[in-house]
């Protein structure tokens, strides 16, 4: 009762604070105007425009690339049916990459947060550092390391771990591995941020209260690091689902993802409506998945 009253008093007090802090009630809107105007013009409007493009059809007898609005909703069905394999692959690869990245990043983040001691900052820099070498250069480096002319493949072949005809690149494995690698820092940093915030005494308390290592992890560490898990998986899954660079560099025609299709529809085939319909479907699917995921994970305050 008192607590509630105090909460409402806090709300009020921060209100009066900002009132006396910076005088005019118009101030926040003035601060927002330029940035929000920019986002409306170059984010919302393009998305709306994309939605509009998605139901267009070619102008009869017109040039390549000229379309008119005919509200052909079937574009969506056609685009989806034609590319359902690539859709499925995109979400499968993205999910796999997310799971692998989480598996690699969680212990890593835990080690940095709790076991690194004075090395903490150095290790954090090392996690972020690869991010500054162009990700394309690193992806190509993997291609060359794992390629026919690299040292890994001959080595494994000599040991008879892989058959002489097996390659490591141009495969689904390589694409997923590449994505896992590329998004690893995006997974590690939010995980680190939330694990680092855990008071190590809570873990000791759990041990004191008869929980073994595994139970402590499941009942204390993991729940407390959930915000990091949610943020990390989103930061990995979302870009991974729309990625086409890894598939283009490390994959083969059999590993094409929806990103590759959208890209080629835009640039090679100049089929804007299909590209738009695919983009829109991709975005909508991701948004729905993200919403459901955030609700399930119970982490409302993400941004």
């Amino acid at each position, binding site marked *: 009762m*008192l607590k509630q*009253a*105090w909460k*409402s*008093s806090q*709300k009020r*007090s*921060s209100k009066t604070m900002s009132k006396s802090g910076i005088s005019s009630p118009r101030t926040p809107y003035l601060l927002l105007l330029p940035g929000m105007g920019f986002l409306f013009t170059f984010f919302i409007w393009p998305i709306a425009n994309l939605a509009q493009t998605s139901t267009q059809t070619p102008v009869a007898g017109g040039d390549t690339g000229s379309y008119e609005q005919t509200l052909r909703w079937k574009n969506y069905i056609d685009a989806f049916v034609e590319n359902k394999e690539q859709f499925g692959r995109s979400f499968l690869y993205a999910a796999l990459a997310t799971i692998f990245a989480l598996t690699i990043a969680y212990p890593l983040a835990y080690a940095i947060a709790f076991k690194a001691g004075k090395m903490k900052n150095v290790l954090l820099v090392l996690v972020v550092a690869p991010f500054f070498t162009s990700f394309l250069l690193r992806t190509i480096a993997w291609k060359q390391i794992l390629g026919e002319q690299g040292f890994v493949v001959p080595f494994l072949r000599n040991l008879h771990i892989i058959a002489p005809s097996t390659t490591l690149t141009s495969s689904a494995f390589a694409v997923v591995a590449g994505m896992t690698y590329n998004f690893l820092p995006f997974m590690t940093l939010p995980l680190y941020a939330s694990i680092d915030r855990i008071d190590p005494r809570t873990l000791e308390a759990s041990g004191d209260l008869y929980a073994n290592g595994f139970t402590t992890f499941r009942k204390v560490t993991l729940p407390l690091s959930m915000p990091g898990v949610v943020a990390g998986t989103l930061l990995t899954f979302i870009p991974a689902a729309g990625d086409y660079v890894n598939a283009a560099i490390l994959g083969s025609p059999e590993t094409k993802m929806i990103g590759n299709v959208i890209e080629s529809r835009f640039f090679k085939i100049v089929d804007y409506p299909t590209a738009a319909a695919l983009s829109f479907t991709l975005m909508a699917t991701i948004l729905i998945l993200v919403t459901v995921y955030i609700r399930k994970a119970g982490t409302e305050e993400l941004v």
Partner: protein
Amino acid sequence: MAEKTSIHGDLRLSNITKSYGDFTAVNDLSLTIPEGSFFALLGPSGCGKTTTLRMVAGLEEPTRGTISLGNTDITFTKPYQRPINTVFQNYALFPHLTIFENIAFGLRRRGIKDVKEQVDKALELVELSHLAGRKPTQLSGGQQQRIALARAIVNRPALLLLDEPLGALDLKLRRQMQIELKWIQKEVGLTFVHVTHDQEEAMTMADTIAVMNEGEIEQLGSPADLYDNPKTAFVANFLGQSNLIKGTISGNDGDNHIVDLFGQKISLAKNRSHAVDNSIYAGIRPEKFRISRLSTPTSGNLLSGGKIEDVSYIGVSTQYQVLMPWGQELMVFEQNDDAVAPFSVGEDVNISWESGFTFALRGDEDAEAGMEVEPEEIIEDDE
């Protein structure tokens, strides 16, 4: 800016009310704090003392009522327009500025000329001149506390507000700072308004204490007044401990009432009674009681038929719980001065005291008001 410092005089709060939605933090509070005094607002969490202080500082606006300093109404002026400075809870030192610049902050804003000289003087006052070049994070809690004080005092405000200034210090340091603060107040001659939930701290430092509860002032007076003759059960329990025994006034004897406590008669000075009718609570502080074996003759008021329930030896005194025939346990503090042999659990005893120590409260009060005080930081600490 010059006219700002010329405002001075008594601080007067008139019918101040502050509500947040349905919740009234401060209710129709009127209070005058004389210039030059060391005044304490004492009360448990959420009693409205910090809200009152923030309204004086200008960080909150009252819903109703006026605040004036001398003859100037300052109710709605901005914090930076008031000749009032605050020592914040947890100090709020600027982490990006050196100690010197922290103290110089107010002087520079006011366009004072001899900043260096004044800052040096303030640093000398708190005996930390050697730390001028450091950053706040490199200082200990006690040092930060003194810098926060210097940062406020250097401006020679008409009024200095202290918001739980010693709350973050450990006990020993707190005692030391209490004495130091009192000395500094005398030295600089400013009006200090001190908000605290620690009754001992308030009693050590202030010349006048206002005990607040649920947005209102329960009682105002000198520390001795409040302790010896509390007006309400809340004050009786919040300031130290009290034994409150239900009774009725059954007769008069000159300047005294005769009071019936569960069949035993005691006397009570009429001018120490705050009761409105015959139903009262008789109050006696635990250290005023004397325990005696049944055979020992006693003077003053006497309650017989007690039985020792519990004994705790705590060095300066021994604390006894004595079970009375009507089922109430009374708390008794006895000096360990070897005058009487210690009592042991189960012993049958009488309790006596000088009748002048008795005070009386209204019989319809809640005898347990003010006894349980919830942890401070959760609620009082705003944000």
